[in-house]
């Protein structure tokens, strides 16, 4: 396949697997991020988000499979991938004893001709970063902003952000988002970011991927996922749970006479099916936001784990 093809995805994970001893951190993960789109990667702690990102950045090597960025394998040629990606890691590894200006100079010399001084200056101004300040004296918010500045000043076509906004106060968070949005408006990069904040996924992402214990549970368009996942609230006459559930039920809970079910690929017939069950007094269909959809899918997986 040609590496310059316009239709080739910007990011491609193919059967990606990573084992740490007995633990399967990433389990046969395959997905694609089309050029110019943004993927939000979510999942509970330990789901494999950071491991996936570290493989994609060539920091870790996979046990099996491949991770490709703009057609280049991060396993075979990590240096080339790093040149084409802007990466904000979960933990910043910027030399603490350096001054902001020195760190910038250091990165400028690493990237040489691909470094865009104009981008760098405008982001420096936007974030009001003081070049004379020592890195060790920067607040957490300032440090993440510096990390973003370094990640976008070589004009990469792909951005990879690992929980960039976790632990930031609301103002720092807004300023960081501002920086990301400005560069997106100018260059239309492809973005992959991980987060625990579903609001950020709604704001920033075109598609979402839900990881759980290294496996990909859901991957697709956010609106479609939200539009087709519904909660069915049932009032039972005598509080005994019917033994059938509609196809696509990812989670259910019985609490007295109230029976709640979260159903994927919802269609009105599924509510009809529930209405037709014995001992059902009332059925109501409730719209869910992304956060509830995510929680119910993950909780359902946990329950499944207990049963097995």
């Amino acid at each position, binding site marked *: 396949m040609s590496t310059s093809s316009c239709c080739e995805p910007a990011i491609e994970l193919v059967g990606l697997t990573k084992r740490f001893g007995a633990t399967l951190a990433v389990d046969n993960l395959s997905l694609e991020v089309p050029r110019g789109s943004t993927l939000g990667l979510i999942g509970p702690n330990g789901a494999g988000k950071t491991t996936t990102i570290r493989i994609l950045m060539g920091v870790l090597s996979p046990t099996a499979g491949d991770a490709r960025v703009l057609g280049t394998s991060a396993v075979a040629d990590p240096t080339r991938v790093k040149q084409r990606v802007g990466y904000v890691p979960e933990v910043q590894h910027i030399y603490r004893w350096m001054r902001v200006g020195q760190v910038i100079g250091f990165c400028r010399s690493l990237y040489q001709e691909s470094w865009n001084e104009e981008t760098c200056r405008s982001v420096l101004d936007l974030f009001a970063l003081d070049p004379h300040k020592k890195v060790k004296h920067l607040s957490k918010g300032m440090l993440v902003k510096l990390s973003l500045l370094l990640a976008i000043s070589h004009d990469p076509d792909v951005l990879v952000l690992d929980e960039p906004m976790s632990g930031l106060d609301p103002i720092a968070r807004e300023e960081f988002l501002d920086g990301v949005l400005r560069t997106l*408006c100018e260059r239309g990069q492809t973005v992959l970011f991980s987060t625990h904040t579903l609001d950020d996924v709604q*704001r920033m992402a075109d598609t979402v991927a839900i990881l759980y214990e290294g496996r990909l549970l859901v991957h697709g368009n956010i609106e479609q996922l*939200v539009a087709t996942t519904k909660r069915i609230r049932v009032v039972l006459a005598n509080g005994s749970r019917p033994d059938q559930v509609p196809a696509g039920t990812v989670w259910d809970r019985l609490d007295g006479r109230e029976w709640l079910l979260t159903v994927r690929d919802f269609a009105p017939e599924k509510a009809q099916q529930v209405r037709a069950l014995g001992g059902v007094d009332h059925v109501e269909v409730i719209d869910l936001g992304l956060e509830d959809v995510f929680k119910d899918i993950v909780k359902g997986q946990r329950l499944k784990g207990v049963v097995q």
Partner: protein
Amino acid sequence: MRIDPRSHVPIYLQIADEVRAAVAAGIYRPGEVIPSLRVLAIDLQVNPNTVQRAYDELEREGLIYSQRGKGLYVAEQGAASAHRRALDTVSRAFDQGVRCAQAAGMSRTQLDEVFQSAVRRTYGDGSQQA
């Protein structure tokens, strides 16, 4: 303009609703420029792709039109089209209220009374009908 990322309503539809409401309210009038993709994306803190989808939608329904290199303008018939679409938004809000009433076991008569008193609160008692 504001959006609610927790709602089940897609963000691009929320943005389209907000722009329609702003046009219906006369904030942006026919022939005037609406905020650029960049301004709105940064202002609302959403991906520019999402704003683009909202604008595509509004352009398709004839509320706005683009002039190459100059920006997006409110169409002559924009205000009328915004009023029509505002009806959709209102009926979506009512749907939600009606479902809520049904879940609480309210009768039609009770719901009717709730509706009438809500109207009275905002529009007055009817002696000076709008």
